[in-house]
């Protein structure tokens, strides 16, 4: 009995100790909310996502620079997914941070969850591009830079090996090249993405729709929003049919559909496929490896119009319920327009900066320079189209719709569903998501 009592006592002591550890742990962890004090100092939470390009080190350094400009702010970095669905989950569960790095405004802004930036505020910070990214005409993110999503990156060595001189100018040339590559035993396209990274499978659809439909009518998705056009309209079904035909012809990387996003990038670097439709952030990864055998082109339409789909970054969304909205906006603007941050954005994320007076740093890679030159040319010719899959403002896909489209697109690519049924499914899901 004596021994048993001793054991009981040890257990009790152990529990007290454990509880003490727990308490300190909880204090150290803190809660997710803002805690301003009377001098206006505040701790703000900032949601970022990490990737092979955007490493933890990148974010820490970038945050530190912006905080130097805006005194009185302590930024707490939190790491999560960079999608509207995830942001929505955070709002739904009461865990929304003060600032979101990626553009997640659509759906949340309409519901009043996000704080609005005034044009004056942004002009004062040097923002010049007000062409897109608005929601009902208002700004909820900072359009400091743009991304081209997607362009087609190609491996010049593999093209040469298959006897192809340069990038294709028309869609039929693209198919010819793909046939030549396949005949030479080279997988023409790195397309895929499985599990959590299934989203990466949609870049082909993004490209085809941009080339075939948006080069003819930039406002197609604005019209879709108003119900003036439908996915079952012939132009969209035809675009979907092209996507299905590419995989049916065996032009994809046959191991691609279960790759992670990071694995796909690696496979393309390893020369497992010749072409890789991807966002312009890819230039950063290629340049970081000092690769010189990679070029870029816009997905060509039948008539030979290349697609240059662009989305103005509309990130740095501020939670309307943040306890210090003004400070959060101020810090966000400082973050978005800090010279070094923009340099870092260029070098690590391939961002195309549109901030007034910004000069590209000398040490950027060749692929990035090539891509920006193409962007400038496209802008000069007014040839850019909205990157419809990634638009976060007006004309954006309704919240929750993208997940459905991504899943259905896999069925389209594997031939499980026909282009007609795919289009019909999208119309149904679009209606359900519009609410």
């Amino acid at each position, binding site marked *: 009995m004596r021994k048993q009592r001793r054991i009981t006592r040890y257990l009790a002591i152990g529990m007290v100790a454990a509880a003490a550890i727990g308490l300190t742990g909880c204090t150290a962890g803190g809660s997710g909310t803002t805690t301003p004090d009377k001098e206006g100092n505040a701790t703000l939470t900032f949601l970022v996502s990490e990737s092979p390009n955007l490493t933890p080190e990148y974010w820490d350094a970038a945050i530190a620079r912006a905080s130097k400009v805006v005194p009185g702010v302590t930024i707490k970095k939190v790491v999560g997914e960079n999608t509207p669905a995830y942001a929505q989950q955070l709002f739904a569960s009461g865990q929304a941070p003060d600032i979101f790095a990626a553009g997640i405004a659509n759906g949340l802004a*309409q519901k009043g969850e996000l704080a609005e930036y005034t044009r004056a505020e942004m002009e004062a910070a040097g923002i010049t591009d007000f062409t897109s990214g608005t929601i009902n005409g208002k700004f909820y993110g900072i359009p400091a830079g743009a991304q081209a999503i997607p362009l087609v990156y190609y491996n010049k060595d593999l093209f040469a090996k298959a006897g192809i001189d340069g990038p294709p100018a028309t869609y039929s040339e693209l198919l010819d090249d793909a046939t030549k590559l396949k005949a030479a035993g080279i997988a023409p396209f790195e397309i895929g993405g499985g*599990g*959590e990274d*299934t989203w990466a499978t949609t870049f082909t659809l993004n490209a085809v729709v941009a080339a075939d439909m948006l080069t003819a009518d930039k406002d197609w998705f604005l019209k879709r929003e108003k119900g003036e056009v439908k996915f079952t309209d012939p132009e969209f079904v035809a675009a979907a049919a092209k996507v299905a035909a590419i995989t049916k012809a065996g032009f994809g990387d046959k191991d691609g559909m279960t790759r992670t996003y990071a694995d796909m990038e690696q496979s393309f670097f390893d020369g497992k496929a010749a072409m890789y439709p991807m966002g312009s952030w890819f230039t950063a990864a290629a340049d970081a490896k000092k690769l010189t055998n990679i070029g870029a082109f816009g997905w060509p339409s039948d008539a030979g119009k290349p697609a240059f789909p662009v989305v103005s970054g509309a990130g740095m969304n501020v939670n309307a319920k943040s306890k210090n909205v003004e400070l959060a906006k101020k810090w966000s603007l400082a973050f978005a327009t800090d010279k070094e941050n923009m340099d870092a954005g260029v070098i690590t994320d391939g961002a195309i900066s549109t901030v007034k007076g910004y000069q590209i740093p000398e040490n950027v890679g060749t692929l990035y320079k090539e891509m920006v030159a193409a962007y400038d040319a496209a802008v000069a010719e007014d040839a850019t189209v909205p990157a419809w899959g990634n638009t976060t403002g007006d004309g954006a896909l309704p919240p929750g719709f993208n*997940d459905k489209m991504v*899943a259905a697109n896999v069925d389209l690519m*594997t031939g499980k569903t026909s282009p007609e049924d795919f289009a019909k499914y999208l119309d149904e899901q679009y209606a359900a998501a519009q609410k």
Partner: protein
Amino acid sequence: MSTTQIKSSKPLPQGRASLRKRRKSLHSPLHFLLFALPGAILYFVFVLWPLVLAFWSSLTNEDAYRPKTSFVWFENYAKLFSDPAYLQVLGNTLVLTIIAVIVPNALGLGIAILLDRSGWAFNAMRAVFFVPVILSSVVVAVVWQQLMKDDGLINAALRPFTDNPPGWLSDPNLALYSVATIVAWQSVGMCVVLYLAGLQSIPKELLEAASIDGAGPVRRFRNVTWPLLAPSVTIMTVLTMIGGFKIYDQVKVMTNGGPGVGTTSTLAFDVIQTGLSSGAVGYSAAKAAVMFFIIALLSMASMKIMKKREVDL
């Protein structure tokens, strides 16, 4: 889920005298305040109350992307059973559950019999089967993903024989069975452990006696081992079945519900997906409620069965 509570819920036979005596000491308000209340409060607030809230929410059209919520009675439930996507999810879960019951129980029993021998080698092998039991299903899912992806190890082994090895996780017709395999693999360990415990509690004298009477291994199994093991088999069947209906982790990690639309989506995965990513909170709650009813029904039915067994024994 078990008969333990059924037994306990029967009033304990006791003399009136002892009852009165106990009331004085054990039934003090202190006993209630210190022993029952803290746990009960936690349980009611953090387990039962959310369940009530879920039922309430399932009767509304609550949506994360729309500020206004109104009461819609059973509209969500009506919608549910005419929603082909939901019927697919239900079908997936059934297929998964059937496999997750049959395969691990059959394999587990076979392996347990195989390993039910003395000696250090058999002891060591038995220990091996403990390992997956304590592994996180996330670890299990990730490892198997490496094996099953298109250029994974399984296909690397198959490539000498075929140019087009199966897309274990990328073929919409196959992925569900691949997920089931992983679930089954992890349950096999548990089945082996439990069946071994059952086998080792069978008196060896019985087997020896049967052997002396000239019974071969097959007859020994049928006439001695199987009847004595049957309660364990019932229990494992019930547990793997309920486990099957709750599958989430493996799907989330390995396929995210795909490839394609809902090919591997399960009840639990669908509930979370509908509520969090699509924001249809009310509809998701209705799905959750249906899932709860299915599992509660299964649990209660199996408790009945087990109780009956106990009476039979």
